[in-house]
């Protein structure tokens, strides 16, 4: 199993993702420069957090035109697994690989804090290591994290069971006060229709060691390893 971590100009969680995979989980991992046009030999690809291209225009709007994105679209179409974390999630929605959009947080503030997430679906390739309804603790750090989609799209996501993570309180209740950014239905992470592309605002790669306060994020990467 080999992971690739894409590096856009302005990515800043690429090293965190690389670190957790290589040094915590002992997995093979390589950086992928955004100018690459061909992807070979990767089993899963991570679009990391950061501010690709300065988040100019809209978060993720310019990164989606990076040469590597065409290759990633093809990779995903062939069933390759892709995780977009934070800015990576924003890139995936701008690229049309996931539905909806990420708007500025409803309170107009950058939020850097720990949140609780409810595993809404523990049967996916990304969440098999978790149990149904498990509550995870992970950090968020974003300004544009308010998940928006129109009513039809939200219904489709629900009907197809593509909502994977929802913001919740420590007990697992999905409440308005537990929603850190105004996302519809407290959505923190969703899948594409084929369920091989995951986008999420919280940072599992920053929740991989006890010293960081949580190891709850490891389950996502371990779930993928189990499927290799």
């Amino acid at each position: 199993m080999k992971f690739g971590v894409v590096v856009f100009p302005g990515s800043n969680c690429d090293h965190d993702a690389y670190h957790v995979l290589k040094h915590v989980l002992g997995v093979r991992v390589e950086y992928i420069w955004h100018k690459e046009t061909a992807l070979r030999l990767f089993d899963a690809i991570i679009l990391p957090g950061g501010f690709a291209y300065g988040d100019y225009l809209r978060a993720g709007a310019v990164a989606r035109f990076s040469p590597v994105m065409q290759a990633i679209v093809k990779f995903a179409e062939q069933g390759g697994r892709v995780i977009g974390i934070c800015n990576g999630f924003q890139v995936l929605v701008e690229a049309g690989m996931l539905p909806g959009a990420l708007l500025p947080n409803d309170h107009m503030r950058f939020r850097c804090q720990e949140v609780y997430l409810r595993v809404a679906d523990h049967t996916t390739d990304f969440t098999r290591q978790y149990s149904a309804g498990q509550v995870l603790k992970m950090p968020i750090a974003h300004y544009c994290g308010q998940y928006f989609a129109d009513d039809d799209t939200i219904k489709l996501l629900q009907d197809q069971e593509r909502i994977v993570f929802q913001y919740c309180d420590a007990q697992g209740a999905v409440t308005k006060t537990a929603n850190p950014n105004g996302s519809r239905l407290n959505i923190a992470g969703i899948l594409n229709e084929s369920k091989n592309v995951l986008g999420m605002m919280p940072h599992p790669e920053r929740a991989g060691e006890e010293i960081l306060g949580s190891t709850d994020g490891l389950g996502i990467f371990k779930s993928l390893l189990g499927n290799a």
Partner: protein
Amino acid sequence: MWLAKIVVTYKRGILNPEAKTIQHALETLGYQDIDGLESGKYFEVRLKAGLKQTQAEQAVREICDRVLSNPVIQQYTFELEEADL
């Protein structure tokens, strides 16, 4: 040369917290007659001379649809004028 003046705003029904915050600030300053406020982004795109007006319009529309706006949440308007720049 054509000059396209493009304005991108959020669609109706999408919460625009920036606009809300500005409106609230103005009301706090005593401007009580404000009935609504929208904020957005403004672009000026210059297109090479030699294009017909319909070609220029089509180019601008394509740029707006593909890049300058996100059709999921935003809408745009533009004016196209002949410029001497």
